[in-house]
């Protein structure tokens, strides 16, 4: 048992180390220089370019030797300090993530939980009825093999564009600012439904056929 956990833990740590390292390597060694890109659109004269380059190098922590940048990156990872965004300068990366994560969780968590419950229940239910087993369950194979984003496009086209039942853009109505009211909540739910459905249906298909298999054992 201990050996099992030690082995697992080693693999996880190694994965973590490699993931962080790769994450550090990719933006530093890919072609293109983001600071150059930021500076070139500003149409500054040569001295000013140097001053601004100094700011940006410091802001992104690129003004120290490369090995130190790597060590600093590890230090920052453990402090939850992800630095300043290049793409959304001068916003801190942590703030960028904080602003985006509610949307991710609000779609992922209900999709995972609800698809697990509904998929298993439906799988078990269908496996006991031959006509469902041979008609609806194959749909499960189809759904689970569908890429989310492709199903998302189909849903947006069908229910958003063709039928016009759901919005095709935005996290909430463009006519609203976020507020604690039923109206806003329902609007949020309305914008939430199609993205949620694209994940839910794919996962639902997976759970349903999985449950059916176990049910037959």
């Amino acid at each position, binding site marked *: 048992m201990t050996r099992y956990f030690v082995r697992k833990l080693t693999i996880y740590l190694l994965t973590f180390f490699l993931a962080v390292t790769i994450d550090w390597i990719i933006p530093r060694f890919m072609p293109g220089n983001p600071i150059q890109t930021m500076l070139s659109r500003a149409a500054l004269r040569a001295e000013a370019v140097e001053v601004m380059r100094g700011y940006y190098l410091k802001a992104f922590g690129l003004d120290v030797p490369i090995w130190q940048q790597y060590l600093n990156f590890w230090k920052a990872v453990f402090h939850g300090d992800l630095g300043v965004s290049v793409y959304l300068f*001068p916003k801190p990366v942590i703030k960028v993530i904080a602003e985006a994560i509610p949307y991710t969780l609000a779609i992922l968590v209900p999709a995972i*939980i609800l698809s697990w419950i509904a998929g298993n229940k439906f799988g078990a239910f269908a496996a006991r009825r031959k006509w469902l087993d041979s008609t609806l369950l194959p749909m499960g194979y189809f759904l689970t093999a569908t890429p989310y984003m492709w199903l998302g496009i189909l849903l947006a086209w069908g229910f958003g564009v063709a039928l016009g039942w759901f919005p095709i853009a*935005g996290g909430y109505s463009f006519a609203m600012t976020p507020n604690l009211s039923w109206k806003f909540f329902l609007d949020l739910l309305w914008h939430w439904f199609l993205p949620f459905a694209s994940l839910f249906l794919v996962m639902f298909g997976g759970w349903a056929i999985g449950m059916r298999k176990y049910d037959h054992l």
Partner: protein
Amino acid sequence: MRGKCWIFLGLAVLSFGLAFGQEFPRNETLYISGAAWGPPTDWNPFITWSKANTSGTVGLIYEPLFFYDPVKDELIPWLAEYGKWKSDQLFEVKLREGITWQDGTPLTAADVVFTYELGKKYPAIYYSPMWDYLESVISVGDYYVEFSFKRKPLYQEFMNNLYNIAIVPKHIWETRTEEEITSGANEKPIGSGAYKYYAHGPDRNVYIRNEDWWGIKLLGLKPAPKYIVEIRFATNNLALGSLLKGEIDLSNNFLPGIANLASLGYVKTYLPKPPYMLSANTAVLFLNLTKKPLNDPAFRKALAYAINVDAIIDRAFAGLVSRASPTALLPHLSKYVDQDVVARLGFTYDPAKARQILAEAGYKDLDGDGLVEAPDGSKIYLEVTCPFGWTDWMEAIRVISESAQAAGINVVYRYPDYGAWNTALVTGTFDMTLNNWASLSNTPWTVYNLLFNHPIRDIMGSGNFGRYNNPEIFALVDELAATPPWDEEGMKSICSKIQEIFLTDLPMIPLWYNGLWAQYVEFVWKNFPGAYEGRPHWLPCTWAGYWQMGGLHTLCVIEPAK
């Protein structure tokens, strides 16, 4: 289980950061799109490159001394009541009396002096080069500002800056550090303009009308929409769909299908006939003159004759743009085009002529593959590039490659990632690439400053990417910059000399005018500008830098449709 969902949704609602808000009434709200390409990040008028994403920062929130009307080619006094040259080295501005900042503080000459002097204090401010010739900017009383110059100023640059430099409130900015001023986010901006910051999200900016705006009384202008919601759509298809449904009123996106929709009457555009759009800037094919055989003027000329611009207009832009003048000047500056020079040295699409020029210059197909070799017998291989994802330009460089191949020149197309493209552009490692960074302006100097930017440095960030090194033309561009705007004949004569050298050497090839993309539907708002039926003439554009070139005036002339 349902409880958990409620918690997460509740968290999602709370974490937006705004505790309350309301729904914008449709008949008081103008929905626009087409300016932003990324989420809003800052409202700092001194960070120029990110303003596309918060384009209202200059024009709606902060205002310059003057506005500019490109259609009539005239400066419009704005914060300034007037500006006049008291001598050729002294410019006086009289501010309007009764302007206040959005926090109620009066706007005075001290704010103007403070803003201009930021450029003297900090080299990272984009207009700091002006201080090479500015002696001082001083306030005389509360309403007069005097700009005096050490020597004859670069008039063209100075006048251009008059409608681009946004005046900021001294009482708010004077306590900030250099870093905050030159690269701070400036959240919750306080300006003097017709709109105030209201809210933002990753895909939107919301502005609310400033009911106490000075212009209502002093200019007799009042913007019609109470709210402006600017939306960034993930794709142009979404923008098109929303426009046709009337969910947005004005779109400044490039939408290839518009020519059809406009001719069928589904949407309105500025021009009732092709190309439907006004011209916004010139797309120029930059050639790297440090590489063979692009260093040979005859080869470049052959290339210019080989490129089928009409096919680009047709295939890449579905007829929404027009062919550029070989001089690169936009139509509203055509008085500076020397037609005689163009007639003698201009070029058109003529593959036979391209082949003839190549043959005369010693480029021959030695190995019979249909492509010419250089006079020294070496094979020619050139790449033409544009950033990946810029679909109209991607199609354009496919046409460039095909038509060059058809004339016997081996040009292939490549789409690097934007970052890699940009680095190759400014460090001069590309072969041939498209660029259009000189925006619509009041002077021919802007585009010639892009094409013939100098001196040649390791990094050419603001133009002359192909490193064309010709001191004669550099001197002419400097002379143009220093020509007073009232000396129109002088400007014409210098432009003519520039064009003579430009078209003789042809170090880069102007191809077409990118359009001022604008399409609108009039379900909620009507009387959008256009060149017909007695409509207002203002540029209906919401891009960064265009609010003061017609965008704000557009808001003041539209009316509720019902």
